């Protein structure tokens, strides 16, 4: 119900929202949980295992119970905590883990089965037979388990990533955080103040005590107003700092538009921030922990501070009568605040026999709550009084306080372990904090408002002092300074189930069972019972669980220790982690200089690394891609074809030692390559395996242009820089990647020279005598356009590669096509390129697959032993040079029209298809329009001695088994007459 006055909600505006198929009304400033409570709804979810009815346990991000599915369609979000969902008009949420309805859930039968469904139930029950797992057990368990369901539709919203830098990051905007921000902000330091709540102020918004002469929430608002005027300070509400990473880097998620029905135009839904800070002040406050007692999970039972927050901040009472169960003085505040707000408090039950008295309600000192009633919501509690009598008390709400746990999570993200402090019965930050981090306020175990204000100011000044910035501590406003008075009390003894972990349904009994079965270390306890392993990561449950374990083992809590805290502090959406890197934007797309022209021609494109390359150029009437590719190959071999080869890596190598350097990078010799000549080069890895191949053209005595394969351009460049800087630091050689600086076209076919002669300026002679095979030159084309010409051939035809500065790439392809009309010049794509290189027997990526050596590739003799080159020594290892080493061979099917499956293995005819008979494998396969036959390349044991043999290529995957003949890999023009023509 909604109280008639009070609360930080805008009562002048009413907004509608829908939950569990019903419409309700709330106000701006509400959370979904507070608005539902105001509407008399306590039941908000079902528990994970027993499907028990549940309402909110907390009023913040530590919520284990009130999990809902928010929004619908592509925006549907499961496991969203109703306690932190900011209410907006038209909000729709559905309960989850309940079928057919929230108030009647069929799987609540699990609750009746609870004596069986104890910790380790699944481990013990579904052990055998193993075959039952996949078909029977797993589907059943999967259907019963799990919380919300995820949508399979794409998320329509954008997520951003951003970077921030500051001197001081303050995490948490409660009294200590605000005071710290005031101190650091006024000193002129670059400050970020981040808080997960949409309303900054922390507990000040949920409490009634004053700061100076005004309400705590008013002081917070006023302080925030001043902070907002400081240009050096950034206020970040709705921002959760979820992880402390190395070297002062923090991860944070800002919920930019989660409080709106849909993100505004151009705004992301959430932003993932990477914050680089010199110092960090953790002011994350503390979280109240419950006490375990029989049936302590009914809707209406919550932490005392949550009950207080709902009443004070949201003017929402879960019921008109409440009770409080506490072991410390703070619980008394809840009772007092409820009374002040007109909520009847039936009783204040304090486990301490010497509890202080309270006005306005009956104090039951030395008493314990031993049972509760109410099927879908609390109706009453049973209390065992100090004198041993029991009393039943009618109440619709119960606030429980077992004390407060400082929020130490972020202090532990770099191996830090908190230490137990008996005076407040809680763990506080200790040792191995992330470098540069200090802690203030309740997070440090300083629970009074005065201590929080003072600590925030002092710690901020100290952090700035470290950085050489002088800060004056502001005058501290007056605030309460009550000492922490608590007598630890963890659970009420009894036979009935008493919940510790509400979300994963772990009870005191389960911890006892874990103890009995030997899972006594906290990390074992956690994994055996799943305590603290739910989406709330045990914020409200871990402490109780390990206290019970400590009691059972007879050890102290300090000796028992805690489990590890790891990022993220609260769940982070995958969308936020992905940012803009989704779909086609997952990585950059690189376009070739001829891309737009190729698109105009109707080319099909294929992704090669990050590049989009034309795969083929279909023409009207061609029914399949094969028709197109066959035509492109035939046309090129018959007259002339052109292909964009810009994507090949290009590395400019200059310096007096350029030749000597390349001589060490390539396994074959480069020292004596003449100026104006090109040579094929093979690079090895240091372990002797082939790394990459390409050409190096010597444009001048001290200037080479090296090409790499498209896929390895980055790796080869990195490797060459390593050799240059780390291995031979005094060589006079410089490298630069020029892949994108030059547009390069392969012009191939018997008419290639005739076509080129129309382009190259007449001053340059490119006749066969003047510009033979493997020549290169810098020249001009088309009346003065600078260009580089290389007479190299991947297709086996008379061929050239012509390069111009990238900005002329588009003009050049159009010019080539225009000038080539008389020869019927045909553009070809990567597929025809691949077919022609297989026909010619050139190795490519499929053959240079990271497992093959120069010997395997048929280039064993290229590895020079006259010089030291990378990989040469280990390439001579015995194991890589056995007589039956794999050799690159050509393969032709006995029936030319039967395809050879790529990846098939080569076996003797008549043997069984088993690994023991394996002779090698097929690496590249295609249909050769030149030979009118399918062909393939592959590696075959002692392949050079098997020419003419009949084997079979078997692919157990596809069921194909093709008789083939072993041939030379050079199917077309083995003598190389065409390319020298």
């Amino acid at each position, binding site marked *: 119900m909604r109280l008639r006055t009070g609360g930080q909600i805008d009562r002048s505006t009413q907004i509608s929202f829908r939950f569990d198929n019903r419409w309700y009304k709330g106000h701006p400033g509400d959370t979904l949980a507070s608005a539902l409570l105001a509407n008399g709804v306590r039941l908000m979810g079902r528990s994970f295992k027993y499907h028990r009815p549940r309402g909110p346990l907390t009023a913040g991000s530590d919520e284990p119970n009130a999990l809902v599915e928010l929004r619908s369609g592509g925006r549907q979000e499961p496991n969203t905590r109703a306690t932190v969902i900011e209410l907006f008009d038209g909000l729709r949420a559905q309960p989850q883990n309940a079928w057919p309805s929230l108030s009647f859930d069929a799987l609540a039968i699990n609750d009746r089965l609870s004596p069986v469904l104890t910790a380790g139930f699944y481990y013990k029950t579904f052990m055998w037979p193993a075959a039952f797992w996949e078909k029977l057990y797993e589907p059943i368990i999967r259907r019963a388990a799990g919380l919300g369901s995820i949508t399979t539709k794409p998320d329509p919203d954008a997520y951003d990533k951003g970077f921030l830098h500051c001197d001081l990051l303050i995490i948490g905007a409660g009294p200590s955080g605000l005071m710290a921000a005031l101190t650091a902000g006024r000193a002129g330091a670059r400050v970020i103040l981040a808080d997960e709540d949409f309303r900054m102020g922390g507990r000040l918004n949920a409490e009634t005590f004053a700061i100076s002469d005004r309400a705590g929430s008013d002081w917070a608002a006023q302080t925030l107003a001043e902070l907002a005027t400081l240009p050096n300070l950034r206020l970040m509400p709705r921002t959760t700092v979820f992880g402390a990473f*190395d*070297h*002062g*880097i923090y991860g944070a998620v800002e919920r930019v538009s989660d409080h709106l029905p849909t993100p505004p135009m151009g705004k992301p839904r959430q932003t993932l921030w990477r914050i*680089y800070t010199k110092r960090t002040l953790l002011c994350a406050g503390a979280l109240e922990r419950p006490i375990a007692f029989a049936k302590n999970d009914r809707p209406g039972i919550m932490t005392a501070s949550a009950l207080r927050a709902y009443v004070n901040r949201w003017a929402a009472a879960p019921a008109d009568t409440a009770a409080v169960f506490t072991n410390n003085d703070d619980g008394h505040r809840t009772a007092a605040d409820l009374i002040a707000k007109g909520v009847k408090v039936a009783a204040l039950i304090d486990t301490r026999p010497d509890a202080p008295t309270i006005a306005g309600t009956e104090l039951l000192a030395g008493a314990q709550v031993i049972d509760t009633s109410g099927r879908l919501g609390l109706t009453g509690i049973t209390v065992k009084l100090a004198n041993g009598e029991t009393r039943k008390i009618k109440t619709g709400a119960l606030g429980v306080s077992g004390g407060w746990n400082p929020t130490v999570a972020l202090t532990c993200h*770099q*191996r830090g372990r908190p230490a137990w402090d008996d005076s407040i019965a809680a763990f506080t930050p200790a040792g191995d904090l992330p*470098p540069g981090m200090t802690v203030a306020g309740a997070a440090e175990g300083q629970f009074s408002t005065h201590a929080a204000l003072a600590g925030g100011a002092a710690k901020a000044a100290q952090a700035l002092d470290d950085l050489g910035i002088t800060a004056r501590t502001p005058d501290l406003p007056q605030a309460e300074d009550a000492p922490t008075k608590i007598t630890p009390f963890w659970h009420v003894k009894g036979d009935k189930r008493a919940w510790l972990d509400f979300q994963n349904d772990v009870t005191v009994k389960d911890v006892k069972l874990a103890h009995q079965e030997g899972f006594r270390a906290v990390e074992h306890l956690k994994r055996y019972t799943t305590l603290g392993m739910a989406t709330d990561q045990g914020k409200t449950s871990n402490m109780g669980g390990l206290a019970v374990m400590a009691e059972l083992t007879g050890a102290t809590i300090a000796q028992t220790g805690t489990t590890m805290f790891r990022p993220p502090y609260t769940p982070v959406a995958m969308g936020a982690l992905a940012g803009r890197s989704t779909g086609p934007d997952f990585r950059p797309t690189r376009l070739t200089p001829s891309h737009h022209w190729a698109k105009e021609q109707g080319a099909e494109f294929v992704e090669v690394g990050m590049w989009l390359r034309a795969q083929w150029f279909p023409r009207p009437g061609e029914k399949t891609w094969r028709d197109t590719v066959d035509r492109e190959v035939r046309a090129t071999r018959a007259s002339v074809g052109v292909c964009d080869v810009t994507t090949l890596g290009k590395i400019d190598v200059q310096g007096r*030692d350029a030749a*000597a350097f390349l001589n060490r990078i390539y396994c074959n010799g480069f020292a004596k390559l003449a100026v104006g000549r090109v040579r094929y080069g093979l690079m090895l890895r*240091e*372990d002797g395996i082939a790394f990459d191949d390409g050409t190096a053209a010597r444009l001048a005595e001290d200037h080479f242009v090296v090409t790499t394969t498209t896929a390895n351009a*980055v790796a080869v460049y*990195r490797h060459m*820089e*390593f050799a240059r*800087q*780390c*291995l*031979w*630091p*005094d*060589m006079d050689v410089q490298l630069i990647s020029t892949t994108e600086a030059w547009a390069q076209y392969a012009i191939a076919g018997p008419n290639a020279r005739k076509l080129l002669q129309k382009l190259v300026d007449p001053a340059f002679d490119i006749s066969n005598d003047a510009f033979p095979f493997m020549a290169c030159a810098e020249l001009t084309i088309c009346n003065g356009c600078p260009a580089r010409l290389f007479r190299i051939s991947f297709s086996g035809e008379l061929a050239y590669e012509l390069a111009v500065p990238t900005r002329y790439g588009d003009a050049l392809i159009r010019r080539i096509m225009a000038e080539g009309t008389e020869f019927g010049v045909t553009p070809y794509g990567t597929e025809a390129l691949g077919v022609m290189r297989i026909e010619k027997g050139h190795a490519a990526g499929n053959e240079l697959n990271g497992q093959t050596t120069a010997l395997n590739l048929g280039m064993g003799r290229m590895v020079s032993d006259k*010089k*030291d*080159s990378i990989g*040469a*020594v*280990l390439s*001579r*290892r015995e194991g890589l040079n056995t007589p039956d080493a794999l050799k690159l061979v050509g393969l032709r099917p006995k029936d030319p029209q039967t395809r050879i499956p790529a990846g098939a293995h080569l076996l003797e005819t008549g043997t069984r298809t088993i690994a023991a008979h394996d002779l090698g494998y097929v690496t590249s396969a295609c249909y050769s329009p030149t030979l009118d036959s399918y062909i393939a390349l592959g590696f075959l044991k002692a392949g050079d001695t098997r020419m003419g043999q009949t084997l079979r290529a078997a692919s157990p995957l596809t069921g194909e088994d093709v008789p083939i003949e072993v041939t030379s890999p050079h199917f077309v023009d083995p003598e190389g007459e065409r390319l020298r023509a």
Partner: protein
Amino acid sequence: MIIHHPLLGPCDAQEFTYMGDARLIDRPDGMAEGSDAAFHDYAYLRENPAGEHRELWFHEQGDRSWLVVTRNTLTHEITQVELARDVARKQGRSR
């Protein structure tokens, strides 16, 4: 992590490509008699210390320097960053 590049100042580790043990600088002489064993060790054996480690990082999205970074593998504390070229020269490498 943040790497303090000797020329460029603090840079995010994301700008770098990692290669591993800085002993890769100590490449044996391939023309020396019986260098196989030395090359085997060079190519395959690495220290994997729990503690201080000297390792190679390439500033791939920066100035393309290779750096030798001394990093504690337990705490990620970085105590020294040098240009790999300087280190190589100090170790007697030249041409």
